[in-house]
């Protein structure tokens, strides 16, 4: 059985948006017959995450939240994985929807046997319109940016290689930029900046031909 392990802390507005937008990825994995293992909200702690990775090895790991060059964080910014525990990603394809993680954590994970680690080398930006705080899926400024980043896990679930998944996200970025750049809608300006910035820092370490067998 193919297994997805996903973390979705939800302690601030940014992580709340990522939590809600990740639901589409979970639904897709379920529709493809995958087993889903979640560490949601306050359960996205170091102990829980590392215990789950040890006991139930996943094929695909999808981390949402905040991060830095060498750490991925969970609930209330607790470090859930760092270079010393990156061996727990052995044999997985991993995607971190977080800032900077690929720089050191990604390299360390691949050195320790992770097939491929996808992430952002810089800050992960997204805009949001205040009135949609409680209904993030209706937020037209956030939508293009979070749909592009969702394209990575959705492609991996559909059996694409890591390289194809990244290409697919880039193609969707180009599609959105081509549309938004001609738009007169002021909210689109915010999305354009973030799309362009995130596209520049999206990359992967490890085997680009890796895919879920």
């Amino acid at each position, binding site marked *: 059985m193919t297994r997805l392990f996903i973390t979705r802390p939800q302690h601030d507005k940014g992580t709340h948006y990522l939590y809600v937008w990740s639901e589409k990825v979970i639904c897709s994995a379920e529709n493809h017959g995958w087993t889903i293992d979640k560490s949601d909200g306050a359960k996205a702690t170091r102990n829980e995450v590392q215990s789950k990775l040890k006991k139930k090895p996943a094929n695909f790991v999808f981390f949402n939240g905040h991060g830095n060059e060498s750490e991925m964080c969970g609930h209330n910014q607790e470090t859930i994985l760092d270079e010393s525990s990156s061996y727990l990603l052995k044999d997985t394809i991993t995607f971190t929807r977080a*800032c900077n993680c690929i720089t050191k954590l990604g390299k360390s994970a691949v050195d320790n046997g992770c097939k491929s680690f996808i992430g952002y080398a810089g800050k992960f*930006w997204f805009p949001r319109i*205040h009135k949609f705080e409680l209904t993030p899926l209706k937020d037209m400024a956030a939508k293009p940016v979070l749909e592009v980043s969702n394209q990575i896990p959705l492609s991996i679930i559909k059996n694409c290689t890591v390289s194809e998944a990244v290409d697919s996200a880039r193609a969707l970025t180009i599609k959105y930029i081509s549309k938004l750049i001609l738009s007169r809608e002021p909210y689109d300006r915010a999305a354009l900046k973030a799309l362009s910035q995130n596209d520049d820092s999206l990359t992967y370490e490890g085997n680009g031909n890796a895919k879920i067998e």
Partner: protein
Amino acid sequence: MDEKYLKKLVITRLNAVPPDVSFSIGKYGDYTRNQLIEEVEKESEVGKAATEMELNFLRKLPKFAKMVE
């Protein structure tokens, strides 16, 4: 381009974003348009990140223009 001009350019471009928009910037947190402008003025870490985002977008603008030709 001198730094004063760049700062003015970035702030002008940020002002084109509606005031009821915030940017989520990872661990830095959430910044409204006006807060982001203040950070650019202060030249803080967040302000520098916002400046880089704007300049990066401007550098790529010719490429984007070709995409819609």
